[in-house]
């Protein structure tokens, strides 16, 4: 029971790191970016390639798993995404699905369609017995890393100047522009960091979620659930939503395996029907 809770929390934390970039993109520019998973997949593949081809240890690959997707994100944002902010949601959906399809085919072409396996360092393998609860070492590692990230993000968002500018821009973009805040620059930075975090999440999650070319499509719905259910006004909303989603998913798969997928989708539809603006957001 507690083990399931623990696994669920680890899974939820992972989802949060994967999806928080998407929540900010949605909130800031009202941009429906279905291609967020592609950045996560990029991070996962960076780690897999560095480890399996060049023999670099797992921990050292993580910075690259952050940097490569975030630079890619920055370039794409400045060249392509930027033009689509003022367009209709239909255009944004089409564009980002197109990107997802291209990413899937490109990875399939260059890496093959099989699952990528990564060999974790031995000190992260196995389970430890703490107070009678079976705890996976790797999952505790994930919880620790993601926990630190959450605290850092929350700190940046609430205590720094950049954070207050970002919040102002999310609240009302036009007024923020009028006050001389460079919204376009803030957005580029946020997009890059969000993509980088997704990449990091993809690398950390390669072991738990699996990593193959269809990753962006398989988890697209999860990311979108986190962003829509959590709401986009704060970081706590998506965080609680991902924890909820993680625990519900793990528990659903464990207790009612034949209804595993239904639990999530039904939960999502119920939440969205009852609270279309998100579980933790204020209605506007």
């Amino acid at each position, binding site marked *: 029971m507690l083990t399931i809770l623990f696994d669920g929390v680890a899974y939820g934390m992972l989802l949060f790191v994967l999806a928080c970039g998407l929540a900010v993109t*949605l909130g800031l520019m009202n941009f*429906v970016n279905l291609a967020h998973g592609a950045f996560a997949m990029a991070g996962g593949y960076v780690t897999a390639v560095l480890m399996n081809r060049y023999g670099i240890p797992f921990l050292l690959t993580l910075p690259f798993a952050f940097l490569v997707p975030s630079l890619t994100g920055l370039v794409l944002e400045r060249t*392509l995404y930027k*033009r*689509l902010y003022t*367009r209709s*949601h*239909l*255009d944004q*959906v*089409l*564009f980002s*699905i*197109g*990107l*997802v*399809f*291209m*990413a*899937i*085919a*490109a990875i*399939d*072409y260059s890496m093959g369609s099989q699952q990528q396996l990564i060999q974790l360092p031995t000190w992260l393998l196995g389970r430890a017995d703490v107070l009678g609860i079976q705890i996976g070492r790797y999952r505790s590692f994930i919880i620790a890393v993601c926990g630190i990230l959450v605290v850092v993000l929350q700190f940046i968002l609430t205590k720094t100047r950049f954070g207050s500018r970002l919040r102002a821009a999310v609240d009302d973009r036009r007024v923020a522009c009028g006050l001389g805040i460079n919204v376009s620059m803030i957005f580029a930075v946020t997009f890059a960091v969000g993509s980088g975090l997704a990449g990091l999440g993809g690398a950390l999650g390669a072991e738990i979620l699996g990593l193959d070319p269809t990753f962006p*499509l398989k988890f697209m*719905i999860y990311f*979108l*659930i986190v962003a*829509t259910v959590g709401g986009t006004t704060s970081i706590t909303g998506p965080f609680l939503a991902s924890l909820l989603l993680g625990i519900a998913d793990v528990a659903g798969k464990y207790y009612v395996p*034949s209804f595993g*997928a*239904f639990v999530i*989708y*039904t939960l*999502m*539809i119920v939440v*969205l*029907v009852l609270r*279309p*603006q998100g579980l933790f957001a204020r209605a506007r």
Partner: protein
Amino acid sequence: MKSHTEDDVRRVLTRRGRWGFSEIAFWLVAVATLVFMPDRHLILNEIAIIALFALSLDLILGYAGIVSLGHAAFFGLGAYVAGILAQQGIGNPLIGLAAAALAAAILGLATSFLVLRGSDLTKLMVALGVALILGEVANRMAWLTGGADGLQGVNVSPLLGLFEFDMFGTTAYAYSLTVLFVLFVLARRVMASPYGLSLRSIRDNPLRARAIGIPVNRRLVVIYTLAAAYAGSAGALLAQTIQFVSLDVLAFHRSADVMLVLVIGGAGYLYGGIIGAVVFKILQDYLSDLTPQYWLFWIGLILVLLVLMDRERMVSKARTLWKRTANRLTHRAEPLATTRTAREI
């Protein structure tokens, strides 16, 4: 003065409902393919089915402005209903078609209350969720649907008791084309009616539409249900003409493909789905020959390029060019009338 404007408006609006020369020519060409391209009937049948599916998406996307990524739910439900009926011994294709359309319409009506809430993204997510749940149901109920192996043993009896479904697809294509035509005429009639006009006003400005007394939600529920029935019919046609149903009919990529088809052809004038289906299938045929595995890449590239090129501007440019040439041919100065009327109001 007022009555004069009223007459003008009425004339402009009814003229829209009249069949133009190019439209008649379009359908004559479609019938001609039935006679003159006998060795292509299998692929033409597929085109007709995709066209009907895209037409159904056009009803909600082009006329009501609802972005749905879960439209395959209705297509798949229709396919399974028709397939299972045929498998259980009710082989009459027309009964299967009607049952599929009805089942899809009921699902559409039931889910419309969930889908038509909240922002664009919420709509998109709920529609997607419905499709995913349906896919999961079909997967779990393997005793009924055959699960991942697909539905085997679909036996469709001859159409109207006369025409056997042959292996060259001639009957199949004639059947699909007829259904497409009948449903198209119906959709065209609906969209030229005051109801269709009210839908357009909802798409262009929901707030204003509500303010002039249009019951926005009720209109959207009706069109969503109708579109679901259309998609169900398209699914039924697929199940009956290829006599096999697999989980693929409910897959995400089907919803994405149909959106691409509609976007290629252009949404909001009913022919977009059909033209898009022709272009899409030809492209697919050509590109899969080139690189069989990486067809997905080309779809993605086309989507990205289409969006970046700004379709709407291109379409409106093409439309003015077309009107100008058409006017030059017929020596009429009609299009000015619309602008003048609008100003007088």
